[in-house]
Structure formats: C-alpha cells, structure tokens
C-alpha cells in the first residue's frame, strides 16, 4: 500500500504484505520427514533505481510477512518492491509515485 501522490520532502508510509507460508525447515510431516525450509529471505525497496530500504528475513518472521516503513518523497519516480524466496526465485512489483 503506497500513496499515489506525495508532497516533495514529505514522509510517506509503505505497507507491504507478501502471502507466503514462510516454512521454517523445522517442521516434520506425518511420516516424520523434515519439511524443507522455504521462506522469503530478502525484501528490497528501490526508489528510482536506488535501494532505499532492505529487510533480511529469517525463519522467525511470521507467515505472510508484513512490513511497514517510511520513505522520503524526493522525486517523481518508480518504486520497485522485490523479494527473494529460498531456491532463488525472485518476484517484483512496481508503483509509480507522483511527487508534487
């Protein structure tokens, strides 16, 4: 969740939730076999190419990880949110922000 437009030099809040089970690798299935770890291990926010916030996530982050953070509106540009899953898959999402 990101505002569509923000006044220059104002602070705005970004809220992100990723639907993901965040399997810790510590559970066993009914046969007693370990369920392999599969978590989102990194989340990065870029604002016009520049990295402005990053989170390195471990097993103790809740399922469906939620992040709320604050950025400074410096210029019109694209916010890119990308996140990386164990195994190397990466996902991203874009949001253009208008700075007035």
């Amino acid at each position, binding site marked *: 969740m990101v505002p569509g437009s923000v006044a220059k030099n104002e602070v705005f809040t970004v809220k992100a939730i990723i639907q993901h089970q965040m399997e810790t690798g510590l*559970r066993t299935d009914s046969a007693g076999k370990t369920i392999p770890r599969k978590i989102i291990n990194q989340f990065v926010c870029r604002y016009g190419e520049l990295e402005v*916030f990053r989170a390195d996530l471990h097993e103790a982050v809740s399922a469906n990880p939620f992040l709320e953070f604050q950025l400074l509106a410096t210029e019109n540009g694209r916010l890119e949110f990308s996140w990386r899953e164990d195994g190397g898959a990466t996902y991203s999402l874009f949001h253009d922000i208008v700075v007035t």
Partner: protein
Amino acid sequence: MSLTRRHILANTMATVACAVALLTPKRTQGADEMEDFLWRLTGRKATPSNRLRLVMPAEFPTGYTVPMSISVDSPMTEADHVKSVRVFAPKNPLVEVVQFHFVPGRSLSSVSTRVRLAAPQHVVALAEMSDGSLLMAKAWVTVATNGCL
C-alpha cells in the same frame, strides 16, 4: 491522497511452524545474560540506549504473529544515521529474526513487522549507527502459545 491497495501474492499454501531446541545462553558469573548472548553473537559491546525503541506487547495470545515496531532517534543524514537494526529472539530455536537496512536521506529509521516467538522471552534489537556504535534495546514478551510448533 489516493491509496492503492497492494496485495503481493508470492506463493502456495500450508501452515506455519518450527520446532524446539532452545538455545540456552551460557551464564557467566555476574554477567548479564543478554549482554553475554549479544557478545557471543556479535563479538562487540552493545550499549543500552533509549534512542532505540523496540515496542512489542508485554503479553500476546499467540506466538505466531507478535507485532513489533522499531524506531531509532536519528537525523538520518550522511554524517549521522542508522545503518541497520538486527533483531534476535534468544529463546527461539533459531535466534535471528530479521535485519533492516536504512538509507540516509531516503528512509526513516523506523519499521514495523510481525514475528514468531517460541516462548516468553526478552526480544532484543541492535542498531548499528554510522559512527560505528552499537545500541541495544530489549522488550519482554509473554506469549501464551509457542509460535514455532
């Protein structure tokens, strides 16, 4: 101000969990257990500071999704900023929780998330400042259910 709802869908189903194998910090005579834990983990001395705030509920019904907010008093300039904040849960089977990285002039030094706690414990946050100092804050949280099983 128009708000765009962003629902990020990454993957699959299934439930949560972890397991138990509590890490028990070795007690040194006279030394604070948390300081000892941090020293063994980072090899550095952290200073308790009220510039760093770790806000969590003192009691929470479930260990699966305990809310956590962190903020650091900082001008976030090139000369004086917070580089990162790490969070540890010493009584979880895996003690590392999360690390946040901030950028001077671009992000504020505050963040909220939700975490899993395996047992009632002190959660600890460590802020690494641009001058190389390490600030520490802890918060006691009692959870009624183990969020890792």
